[in-house]
């Protein structure tokens, strides 16, 4: 197990503008840490810098309390799983798994012991003599994981390892990777562009965009209190509904379309004083007005039936908002449905800086959990 620390890490190619900027981060021992961001955000570059495959332009990288900026990958005591698995097509599964140990000249007996342990763990015992091309995607994935297991490195890096699998297998491998990490007590740094993967797997998540850290925190914090508009729209599926808003007396006018009664909000608060306001509301917080009084009547422009839940889309000015309702609702496109939008469920952002001004009031949330 090793702790990874990044001090003001930056990266630039050919003295051009930085692709990564001021990355300060501390990853604890045994933590499952997820780097998530859209493509081109620099997450893979950051991972490759930690691995030593990419030069570090500025800053200090420490692994297990040792500065490793200058060390080649093999001396950093880590293993890595690549997106395309990087299996050697001309070698059998067994040779693939043992490749690293042979290169390091680990003695034969120990090689076999580690192989046996890893293959038993990954369920590969019957496939040892096969070539990678004779394996399915999931099996290849397991070989790549086994290769990282036999190295017995305390730090494991994964670069979008599940993105080549189909949805069903991906969900299954998510659990398997997570279990493996807990079982071996690995420190894991996991890169993905899939926010669902990040949310379901990570102990902590770092959201990266344009080479800058947007937010670091545990999944629930990221979901409930997104630090800025980017995180708000990136984390969560369907994404958070956003709209520009202005205060007119005690009313909040969203996209010149929706009026939300803010009740007795004091004019002195930061929210009221901000010139350009954007509000956000999660899809599950636009409720059907069944038990509660209807605050708005909205026209449905699209319905998605998922079986266990129903997604309804509304047009709010120029924005499309989605509501997620549990169960099966027989609504039709074009229908006008009464909905309940509570002012407590709104997130407020400063449109200019993108920063969060006020998150949803958490009180009711906990009440629900208690009940």
């Amino acid at each position: 197990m090793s702790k990874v620390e990044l001090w003001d890490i930056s990266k630039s190619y050919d003295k051009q503008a930085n692709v990564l900027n001021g990355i300060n981060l501390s990853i604890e021992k045994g933590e499952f840490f997820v780097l998530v961001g859209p493509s081109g955000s620099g997450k893979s570059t950051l991972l490759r810098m930690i691995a030593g495959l990419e030069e570090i332009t500025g800053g200090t990288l420490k692994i297990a309390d040792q500065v490793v900026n200058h060390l080649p990958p093999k001396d950093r005591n880590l293993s890595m799983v690549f997106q395309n698995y990087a299996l050697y097509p001309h070698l059998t599964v067994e040779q693939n798994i043992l490749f690293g140990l042979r290169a390091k000249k680990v003695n034969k007996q120990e090689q076999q012991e580690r192989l046996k342990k890893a293959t038993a763990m990954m369920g590969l015992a019957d496939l040892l003599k096969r070539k990678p091309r004779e394996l399915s995607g999931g099996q290849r994935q397991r070989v790549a994981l086994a290769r990282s297991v036999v190295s017995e490195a305390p730090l494991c890096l994964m670069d979008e390892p599940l993105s080549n699998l189909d949805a069903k297998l991906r969900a299954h491998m998510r659990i398997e990777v997570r279990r493996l990490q807990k079982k071996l007590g690995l420190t894991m740094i996991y890169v993905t562009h899939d926010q669902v993967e990040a949310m379901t797997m990570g102990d902590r998540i770092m959201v990266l965009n344009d080479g800058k850290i947007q937010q670091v925190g545990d999944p629930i914090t990221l979901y409930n209190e997104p630090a800025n508009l980017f995180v708000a729209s990136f984390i969560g599926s369907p994404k958070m509904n956003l709209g520009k808003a202005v205060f007119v007396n005690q009313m909040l006018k969203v996209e010149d379309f929706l009026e939300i009664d803010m009740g007795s909000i004091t004019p002195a608060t930061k929210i009221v004083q901000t010139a350009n306001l954007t509000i956000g509301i999660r899809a599950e917080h636009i409720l059907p007005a069944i038990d509660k009084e209807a605050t708005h009547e909205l026209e449905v422009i699209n319905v998605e039936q998922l079986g266990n839940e129903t997604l309804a889309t509304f047009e709010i000015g120029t924005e499309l908002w989605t509501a997620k309702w549990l169960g099966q609702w027989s609504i039709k496109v074009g229908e006008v449905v009464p909905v309940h939008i509570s002012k407590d469920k709104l997130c407020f952002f400063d449109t200019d800086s993108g920063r969060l001004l006020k998150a949803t009031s958490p009180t009711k949330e906990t009440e629900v959990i208690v009940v």
Partner: protein
Amino acid sequence: MKEAVMIPEQYKQIDFMKVKKKQKRVRFIKGMLFLLPSILLFSVFLFYPMARTLYLSFFLTDNSGATTVFVGLDNFKNIFTSPIFLKSLQSTFLFVLYTVPGTIIISLFLAVIANEKLTGIGFFRMIFSSTMGISVAAASVFWMFLFHPTMGWLNQFLEALGFEAIGWLTNPEWALLSVSISTIWMNLGFTFLILLGGLQSIDSHLYESAEIDGASYFYKLRRITVPMLSPTLFFVITVSFINAFQTFGQIDMLTRGGPQNETNLLVYSIYQEAFKNYQYGTASAQAVILFFIILLMTLLQFKLGERKVHYQ
């Protein structure tokens, strides 16, 4: 219900088999039309000459190449007892043995070093592949100057170092080797380019993964580069083999088969037999033998080599 099951009158009259057959025929004719240009060209420049060669190899001919006497397999019997032909066969095999491994090893080395990501590597890649753009004739003239007994740089260099001058192209012990050296040089560009292409198509993640595992440079070269390059290597070896057997230009330019028939390779021997001695029959017989040698060697390579080749 009965009405629904009945096939309407208009469909009954269509004979599906017949329509399908017609469609097939149209497709076949279309395909043939696309193939026609190549069939025509191949027939004129390949199939007909091949058949003609085989035909001529059973005859004696006059000066113009017209057949005179049918001799059956006599041409073949004669050339296999002819010391000149046997010598030529031996030289050809030696020549192949010198040039093929030489070309492959040197160009593999050049390709591996030119595959490194360094600034200005493009310049070296251009230099290494440049011999591809030089014609055999030009290269031969160039090497003739290098090999020149007195003015040649090679001998001047040797003499400057205090060695005796070598009769590169005139000494029977050296001539074949000299021609081989110049041939290796001429073939380097092509082989280098193909191998470099092969190297660049190897997934870089394999090397990165090996790097994390702590594999040394030579371990990576042996366990990743060479096996992953094997399809390309196999192709290059096969092509080099065939090219070596068919060498003609540099022989004609540098040695004209001499000294003492040392460099009288098969194709040059065929050329002399046909166009110097006007023995079209025996020349054709030699050509047929060359064809079968190349065919056999290539088949053998596929049999032996394919097992060690890892296709993706």
